[in-house]
């Protein structure tokens, strides 16, 4: 994996900049890990951006309007997203909907809910403690980075060392063989979509916490970043392949690139174009590397 080092701008290497960059891509990384699991099974989730926004809205609402304790609000936020994830999974399994279509639908539904709940207005008036997750530091390192690290380790172990993780990979490789081998495919599908949405929600809460506001439009287009991170990280959209480390690197590439472009004072219009070029280049490089092997 190539890491783009924009050594052209020395300010890039200042610790504060590095940390802030890392914090910005940790949301992508966390959601990316969720999407990774879905992509490994050969599916996709377009609703990640919407549940990201929904979770932020729900948790900030519970906090500011209903005065619930912060941590309960956050759990409810994750739960709200997870419900959508489970819905995605159920639709794929029982309605036999292609994941693209199912999640396209929930993407709109969740986004709609965001707007309905907030009537379009951002949710503020948050108690100070809420911001700790997004803005606070522990041992000098932003909390967001700690969260990313813990989730990365947790899920790397889950995918690579547990029975369920192995089954997820097997299912992505060949769902029919895995089913005949006595593994409950339906349960696995519902699981990965639920977990994916839960992680996406968590990422949304971290961002809401960082901004101090629950934005109904938060996460618009975010699903593309999450999916890009996973794909740049080496996962195959047809399933069966992918890694947590790869996803983190993918997210890092996106984050670093954005940061570099800003520091180099590149026109913001060009940023999107360059991002697109980088995605294509990175995935092509990975495909060529893979076809070199047997």
């Amino acid at each position: 994996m190539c890491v783009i080092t924009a050594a052209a701008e020395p300010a890039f290497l200042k610790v504060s900049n590095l940390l802030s960059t890392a914090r910005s891509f940790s949301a992508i990384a966390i959601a990316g890990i969720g999407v990774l699991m879905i992509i490994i099974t050969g599916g996709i989730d377009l609703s990640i951006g919407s549940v990201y926004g929904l979770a932020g809205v729900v948790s900030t609402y519970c906090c500011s309007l209903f005065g619930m304790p912060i941590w309960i609000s956050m759990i409810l936020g994750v739960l709200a997203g997870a419900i959508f994830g489970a819905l995605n999974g159920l639709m794929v399994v029982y309605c036999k909907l292609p994941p693209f279509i199912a999640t396209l639908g929930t993407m709109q539904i969740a986004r709609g809910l965001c707007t309905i709940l907030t009537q379009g207005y951002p949710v503020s008036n948050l108690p100070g403690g809420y911001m700790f997750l997004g803005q606070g530091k522990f041992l000098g390192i932003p909390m967001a980075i700690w969260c990313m690290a813990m989730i990365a380790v947790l899920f790397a172990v889950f995918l690579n060392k547990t029975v369920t993780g192995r089954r997820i990979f097997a299912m992505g490789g060949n769902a029919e063989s895995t089913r005949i081998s006595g593994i409950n495919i339906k349960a696995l599908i519902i699981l990965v979509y639920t977990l994916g949405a839960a992680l996406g929600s968590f990422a949304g809460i971290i961002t809401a916490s960082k901004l101090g506001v629950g934005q109904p439009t938060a996460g618009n287009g975010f699903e593309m970043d999450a999916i890009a991170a996973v794909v740049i990280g080496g996962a195959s959209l047809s399933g069966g392949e992918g890694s947590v480390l790869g996803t983190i690197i993918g997210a890092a590439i996106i984050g670093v690139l954005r940061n570099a472009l800003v520091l180099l004072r590149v026109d913001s219009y060009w940023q999107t174009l360059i991002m697109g070029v980088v995605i294509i280049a990175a995935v092509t490089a990975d495909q060529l590397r893979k076809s070199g092997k047997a």
Partner: protein
Amino acid sequence: MTKTRTPILEMRGITKRFPGVTALNQVDLTAYPGEVLALVGENGAGKSTLMKVLSGVHKMDEGEILVNGEKVEIADPLSSQMLGISIIYQELNVLDNMNIAENIFLGREPKKGMFEDKQKMHADARRLLDEVGLKVDTWTKVRTLSTAQKQMIEVAKALSFHSKIIIMDEPTSSLTETETETLFAIIRKMREMNVAVVYISHKLAEIFAISDEVAVLRDGVCAGRMTTADCTENDIVNAMVGRDINDLFNKQDAKIGDVVLKVEGLSTKGFLKDISFELHAGEILGFAGLVGAGRSEVMRAVFGIDKRESGDVFINGKKAFIRSPKDALRYCMGFVPEDRKSQGLVLGMSVRQNTTLAALRLVAERGFISRQKENEMTNRFVKALEVKTPSNEQRVKNLSGGNQQKVVIAKWLASSPSILILDEPTRGIDVGAKREIHALMSDLARRGVAIIMISSELPEILGMSDRIVVMHEGRIKGVIPREKADQVSIMKMVVS
């Protein structure tokens, strides 16, 4: 009648290496026009690799190829086809969603100006189909055809290229006896047209029926070349295996115990009707019938892969509720499916990962997989089944067909089933590996495992089964005990 003995194809000193294994080592092969050359060898001997070098799929590391006396470079499948070489693979290369004519003329559709000349395409296709004897409309979508019919389309396609060298890789593995005869008729016609046919097969009976010469490969080197008329089965097997093989099936007697599985009145939507049978411990119950008789469908329904409309399954006398393969596993059942690549294995995963897939709980401690236990389990089966693989980490897609099949069997043995269903367990597998699998089945039966074996090879069914269930068109026609069974009695029951 004097035949021209100028070779149309000469492969000299062909060497091909893959990571970890030398698949071909200085192999020579010569084919003459108007002759059928049989190419035999155990799995992993290099037959498919050699043909893939010839058809441009693989590039050889050393060696040269001469067509009509001239040295040629085969860079890709297209160049191979341009040189007049056509290959018909074991896994057919047809596009299911298109019709017959489109499949035959893919990429070279006749044109009228800018548009496809569909009329001409179908007329040409019709002529080719008549040549091979396929009486199906050229507008038929290939998806609806049987494997045998798809194969005939591949032959028609090869003929349309005016190929001078046609290679057929295990062409009869999914064909019935009648369909095989039709194929032989086509091959004889090709011989008359002075085409050189290279016929790769494990079925010695066929080799004696259709070939003029036999070339044997063993472990990537040439192990012999003989004229079919002058050699015996033993000579060929000797060359293939390097040792003498006496009887093909060594079914030893096992003690037949109580009924472990009873199926009553099983029916599925629109096909299976009222299937009932019993299976005893230590027994090998063969299921015979023509391709499409419904044998696989019965097993898939019993094992919970497909839904059944009615009927009951009893295990050890008690009613069993099997609605998914997971349930079946809980009743200590195992199922080796018909198609190892699409139903039996996860091709992208390693030998280790495939072997342990149905028994993950046995190699895990509190949900975490123990690599050590996994390797122990894999090593045990690799050794017991003599799986030829460079390591446990080798991706199964790189193994030969026979070894892939052994991995599938290993996977199901790993959870120690008491009822094991095998659907065409030795299809596309060489003599040596076949014998090993039969010995394994025999051994399992002696240890009390109840075995059901579906096979389209009558000699295999006759040699291995204690009783034979005969099916036809979704129904059971009858059960024949070993002593009374022979080809005639089975066929009689099929058509009764």
